[in-house]
Each structure stands twice: as structure tokens, then as C-alpha cells.
């Protein structure tokens, strides 16, 4: 899988209670990296992801893949969907076959691939998501976390260049979130670009190479510690500041943390703090 640059330019899309959801939103997905898309409920994260995936045609603006505009024709969408896959939030909306392996094979079979190739892709996707042991199980017997990972495997089996996930960690307990993030890390190592939407700012800070905040119909994009440290922006977006940035900044001011980039989670913060009283960074 080569890296392609997926971008949105000046998108207007969606209507909610008489107002545009997206109003001139532009975003460039950094190829080969991890992008967290942040925003409150109803801010337009999902609308933006649906436009990027080709599921929703914007009222204005364009979506491009390596500069080429996505055309809402049958062949245009077909090509786009082979390169860009979106995994929706509720796994039950995506699992419609009887067994796990059958469900993951849905995309490759629809692509008309030979059986051996389908089998290989299914096996690979199940392996990457660490759900190979579930292959023969009926989907309705799986736990919520397992269903989420199987739904992601279904998209991965399409071998997209850009994999987008709408709230992949919502409803998962901490261990399951850890497993999901580990699977996404393996995907990225396998050369994919990964986009994840979330409203968990702590998670975004910990995970992402870059973040984009959807606010007032537009998008603000940048480095995680810069964007998530901007209190004015966060208030407009109805988001909290990540605790690690708040606490880290104070500890840096107190001379307990070295200058430069702040730790992004509890483990990194504890590792950077001195062990004994009286020692400063």
C-alpha cells in the first residue's frame, strides 16, 4: 500500500435544524501517519468522515485523493472506496453476515477477487486485529469489543490506503481500548494512514501524530500539544484540555519537568518526574 494524500477543500455538507453542519471545512490527512479528529457530539466529525469516504456528497467543495477530485459517479466511487475505508461507530451496523470470517470476506468477495486471494485477505485482516481465534464464531455471540474489532477487520480486508474509524474506542473498557489502539498501531506499521474520530482529548494526545478539531463547521489542524493546548479553541469546540498538558505545564513551570515537549500520558509523566524530593529537572 502506497501512501496517498486524502484531502477535503471547502466542504459544505449536512443540515441539522436548519443550519449547515460543515461550512467551508478543509482538511489534509497526513499520509502514513495517525490523525485524530476531535469534536463534540454533533460538531460534524461523522459528516466530515462520510464526505471523505464518498458516502456523502458535499453540497459544495471537493474531496481529493493525491490531487484527483472524487467524482460521485459509479466508477469514481468504486475507485475511491478501494483506497479509502470508513468504519462506522456501531459495529452492529457493519456486521450482517452469519459468521465472522464470512463477514470479513464481504468486501473482497464483492471486489470479485479469486477465492484464494479472498481467503488470504480475510486471514491477514483477522490476524492484524487479533481476532483470528474468532473466525468461525457467529457474530451475534461476540462481545462488544470483539464486534468492534471484527468490523474494523472487514474494512482492513479491503486493503485501503487510508483507514478512517468513527469513535473506535467509544464504549470500550480500558483494556479493550488498549487492544484496539495496538491493532491500529500494527495497521500503521503495515503502511496505512489511520484517521480516528474521538471526543476523548486525553486519548488523542496520547495516540495521534497530528490532530484536527472540528469546530463551528470548520477544521483546525496541527500538532497535538499545540492544538490541544489552545484553551480558546477548546472552549469553542466544547472540549476539555487534556489533563497531561495542564498538569505538565505547571510542573514544568515548577522546574520538575525538563523544558521542551510535555509528556503525553501518566506513564510518560511519571517517568519524567524526579524520584526524590528536592531534585529538579
Amino acid at each position, binding site marked *: 500500500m502506497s501512501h496517498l494524500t486524502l484531502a477535503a477543500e471547502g466542504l459544505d455538507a449536512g443540515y441539522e435544524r436548519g443550519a449547515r453542519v460543515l461550512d467551508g471545512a478543509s482538511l489534509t490527512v497526513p499520509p502514513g501517519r495517525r490523525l485524530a479528529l476531535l469534536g463534540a457530539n454533533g460538531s460534524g466529525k461523522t459528516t466530515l468522515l462520510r464526505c471523505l469516504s464518498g458516502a456523502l456528497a458535499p453540497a459544495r467543495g471537493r474531496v481529493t485523493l493525491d490531487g484527483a477530485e472524487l467524482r460521485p459517479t459509479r466508477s469514481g466511487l468504486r475507485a475511491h472506496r478501494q483506497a479509502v475505508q470508513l468504519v462506522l461507530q456501531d459495529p452492529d451496523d457493519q456486521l*450482517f*453476515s*452469519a*459468521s465472522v470470517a464470512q463477514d470479513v470476506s464481504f468486501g473482497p468477495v464483492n471486489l470479485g477477487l479469486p477465492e484464494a486471494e479472498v481467503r488470504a485477505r480475510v486471514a491477514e485482516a483477522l490476524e492484524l486485529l487479533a481476532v483470528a481465534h474468532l473466525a468461525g464464531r*457467529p457474530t*451475534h455471540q461476540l462481545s462488544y469489543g470483539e464486534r468492534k474489532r471484527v468490523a474494523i477487520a472487514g474494512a482492513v480486508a479491503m486493503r485501503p490506503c487510508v483507514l478512517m474509524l468513527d469513535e473506535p474506542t467509544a464504549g470500550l473498557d480500558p483494556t479493550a481500548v488498549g487492544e484496539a489502539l495496538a491493532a491500529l498501531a500494527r495497521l500503521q506499521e503495515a503502511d496505512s494512514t489511520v484517521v480516528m474520530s474521538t471526543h476523548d482529548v486525553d486519548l488523542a494526545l496520547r495516540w495521534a501524530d497530528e490532530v484536527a478539531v472540528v469546530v463551528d463547521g470548520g477544521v483546525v489542524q496541527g500538532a497535538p500539544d499545540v492544538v490541544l493546548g489552545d484553551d480558546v479553541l477548546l472552549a469553542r469546540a466544547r472540549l476539555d484540555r487534556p489533563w497531561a498538558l495542564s498538569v505538565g505545564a505547571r510542573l514544568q513551570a515548577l522546574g520538575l519537568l525538563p523544558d521542551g515537549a510535555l509528556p503525553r500520558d501518566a506513564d510518560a509523566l511519571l517517568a519524567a518526574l524526579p524520584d526524590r524530593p528536592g531534585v529538579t529537572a
Partner: protein
Amino acid sequence: MHIAEGFLPPAHAIGWTIAAAPFVVHGARAVVKEVRENPESTLLLGAAGAFTFVLSAIKLPSITGSSSHPTGTGLGAVLFRPPVMALLGTVVLLFQALLLAHGGLTTLGANAFSMAVVGPWAGYAAYRLVRRSGGGLLPGVFAAMAIADLATYVTTALQLAWAHPDAASGFAGAAAKFLSVFAFTQVPLAIGEGLLGVLLFRVLTVN
């Protein structure tokens, strides 16, 4: 295929309403009895009605290039029996008239007669016939859904022919006209809906 509001003369509108009424009342009695014995079935029947409504939002393409929406009454007849379908089908027709502008109020009786009475009964009869003569579940479901669709379409065409007989050849000529005009969309749809039923039951029975 629903007859639009205002398309039937008053006498026909009244006549078909009277014709459909006993079946719908019979279905309502069955529902009242079911709910009295088992209050939760209100929710199951409501869900069944909603499913029938939503099924008609699935677009089925056909090889002739036309595309149409299934009626779902054959499936409902197999799952819930024709009397209950007479009521649920009528409720769905009322919803389609008022939420989708599909059908009408004065034509509700005529549409209920073709889609909620004749369709389900014909489909159910076809299903029993196939099963009794040794056919499997899937052929039975195919027959139920395809025949329910065909029977509904034929009934509707005859209703229209009776209301608007041909100036020269009368009822027979009008029936031939309406049957052939609507055959373009309805015959492929009947086959398509039968296939849809088979695919649906295949998924359900594997689970």
C-alpha cells in the same frame, strides 16, 4: 403500486372499503386477543409493522432497468399469518399515504384489499402449497413473496379496469391495458422480491 388519492370514483372507493373491512376487523380482533393475552406483543407487532414499512424503502433494481420497492406482505403473511397482516398491512398503507404521499385516504380501502388482503392470502396459500407438496422452506418463501406481489398487482390492475373501463372493449380491454402497462415494473419486482425473500431467509436460517 398503490392507487393514488382521487383515482377511483366515489362508488368504487366506498365499495372497496366495505370489501376490505371484514378482513381488517378480523385482523384487529386477532391483534386485540393477542395483546390481551400477552401485553408485550404490542411491541413485537409494532416492530413488525415498522419492518414492513421499512422493507418498502429497500430499492430493488431489475434487469429490465426499472427499479421498484418490495411490498413485504408475503413475508409478513408467512411470519405472522394473513389475518394479522390484513391489519398491519392497512396500518402500513395509512403510514405510506401520510408519511410518503404514496397511496391515498379514499383509496385506502381499495389498496388494503389488494395489498393487505389478497396479497397476503395468495402468498400464504402459495407457501402452504409449496410446503405441502414437499418443497423446502426457501422455495416456499420465494413463492409466498412473488405470488403475494403478483396477486396484489393483478388485483390493482383489475380494480383500475373496473373503475375505468375501455371506451370500446369495456372491462376486458381495460384489464388487458392496465395489466400490461404495470407488468413492466411489477413482474420483475415480483421475481426480485421472491429472490430477496430467499436471500433473507438464507441469512436468517444460517444464524
